[in-house]
């Protein structure tokens, strides 16, 4: 049996190329058209990959022909940058993909869910047999172990999620937090939605145009506040998100100082995503105030990403251990599925060792 993977990803192809091969084929159609024994199609915004098992060698072109959307386009003419991994390399590649080591944003959590959905879909159409079943079950376990035993998924890596993550680091539970959104822009709306999804229930919206404030408040389930009243709100709120088009800073230490005295030492987290900035940078020097502008949020996101990249070596070590174990099972002529119940997995051994 030949196990192989053919695909293209953000490493090898741009989105225009990837979209030519995404969306038209299914695992079932690949099994039928290419003559594989088993096949699984993994399609995400960054990759299109076919994992297959066959009795004979199936060329990359044959797989590409099954994937391509335009019937009249010959994959030879198009020359897409397909990669191909066989046997052990294929196992290693899948484990790296599932563990988000190969992702554009290292450590992202989406890929595992997407791989599980791809597996379920292929399983429903009977395109997955015992070989791919065992391979993917192991891949999911490897991914979980990598996430648990390394810091590859630690920290937020987008501006919106950094803001929400920091809010949780300051306040813990966000359900008791009061949030004021100043300026009804798209980014502030996204950040407000992210906060609501993490439990914020008291959300106020203030905008120069009261209609727009009411509209956004209604959309996100908050309450509109007249623009003239927003400074007074700083006495009560915990999180302030500003994104107005004001040319001069709206909030200065002089304005904020009297309000801070009435806040009973609750921290104030300010997310200033406006350009030019709405909040004077010296506000960050005040006791209990944490000010993050767009650059500092970006900088935190980059720090998290750098931290995740440092964890890649640890993740690769776990993956290598599992690849060797899985390949060993196959090379000894034992069906991987047959040994699953009696053989304690590498993951369990590692976990046991780390616990001890």
């Amino acid at each position: 049996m030949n196990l192989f993977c053919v695909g293209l990803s953000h490493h090898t192809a741009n989105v225009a190329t990837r979209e030519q091969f995404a969306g038209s084929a299914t695992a079932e159609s690949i099994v039928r058209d290419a003559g594989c024994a088993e096949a699984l199609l993994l399609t995400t915004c960054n990759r299109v990959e076919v994992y297959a098992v066959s009795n004979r060698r199936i060329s990359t072109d044959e797989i590409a022909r099954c994937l391509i959307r335009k019937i009249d386009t010959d994959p030879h003419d198009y020359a897409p940058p397909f990669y191909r991994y066989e046997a052990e390399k294929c196992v290693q590649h899948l484990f790296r993909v599932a563990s988000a080591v190969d992702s554009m944003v290292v450590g992202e959590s989406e890929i595992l869910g997407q791989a599980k959905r791809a597996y379920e879909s292929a399983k429903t159409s009977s395109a997955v047999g015992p070989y791919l079943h065992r391979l993917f079950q192991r891949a999911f376990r490897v991914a979980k172990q990598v996430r648990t035993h390394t810091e590859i998924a630690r920290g937020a890596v987008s501006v919106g999620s950094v803001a929400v993550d920091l809010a949780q680091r300051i306040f813990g539970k966000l359900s008791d937090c009061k949030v004021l959104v100043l300026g009804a822009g798209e980014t502030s709306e996204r950040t407000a939605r992210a906060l609501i999804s993490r439990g914020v229930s008291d959300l106020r919206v203030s905008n120069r145009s009261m209609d727009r404030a009411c509209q956004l408040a209604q959309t996100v389930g908050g309450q509109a506040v007249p623009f003239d009243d927003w400074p007074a709100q700083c006495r009560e709120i915990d999180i302030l998100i500003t994104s107005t088009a004001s040319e001069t800073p709206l909030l200065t230490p002089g304005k904020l100082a009297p309000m801070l005295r009435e806040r009973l030492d609750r921290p104030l987290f300010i997310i200033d995503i406006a350009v030019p900035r709405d909040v004077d940078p010296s506000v960050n020097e005040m006791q209990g105030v944490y000010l993050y502008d767009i650059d500092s949020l970006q900088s935190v996101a980059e720090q998290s990403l750098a931290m995740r990249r440092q964890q890649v070596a640890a993740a690769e070590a776990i993956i290598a251990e599992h690849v060797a174990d899985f390949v060993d099972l196959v090379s000894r002529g034992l069906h991987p599925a047959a040994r699953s119940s009696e053989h304690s997995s590498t993951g369990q051994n590692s976990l046991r060792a780390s616990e001890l």
Partner: protein
Amino acid sequence: MAYGAFALACIAGVMYLVQERQLKTHQLHSIFYHLPPLFDLFAAITRLLWWGFLLYTVGIVSGFFTGHPLPRVQVVAAIAVWLLYAAILQGRHLRWLAPKRVAALCILGFSAALTLLWGITFTAQMHPLP
């Protein structure tokens, strides 16, 4: 037990200051993600200070009822530590002290208490009572 509560408050104070510093400077290191939220840390510091103070007060008061003569230096040191923590709690209660100062004073207070304890033990060994 009182010293245990003060020690925990001191550790929580260190964690608070580390986290506060990283949040202010926007430099979040790996340790930042392992610390409890800032707000919860300060709540824990306040609780630990109160428990430590109550237990310490009970300890001092019960010391006077043991019936044994107490060395003056020990009594003075115990009252000094009691006054230090009473001042921190009073400053917190009246909102004179910001959370960051309370965290710093927890570290300072515990260091002072340990130094006094060590000093008394050392003095007692050098000049044993007749």
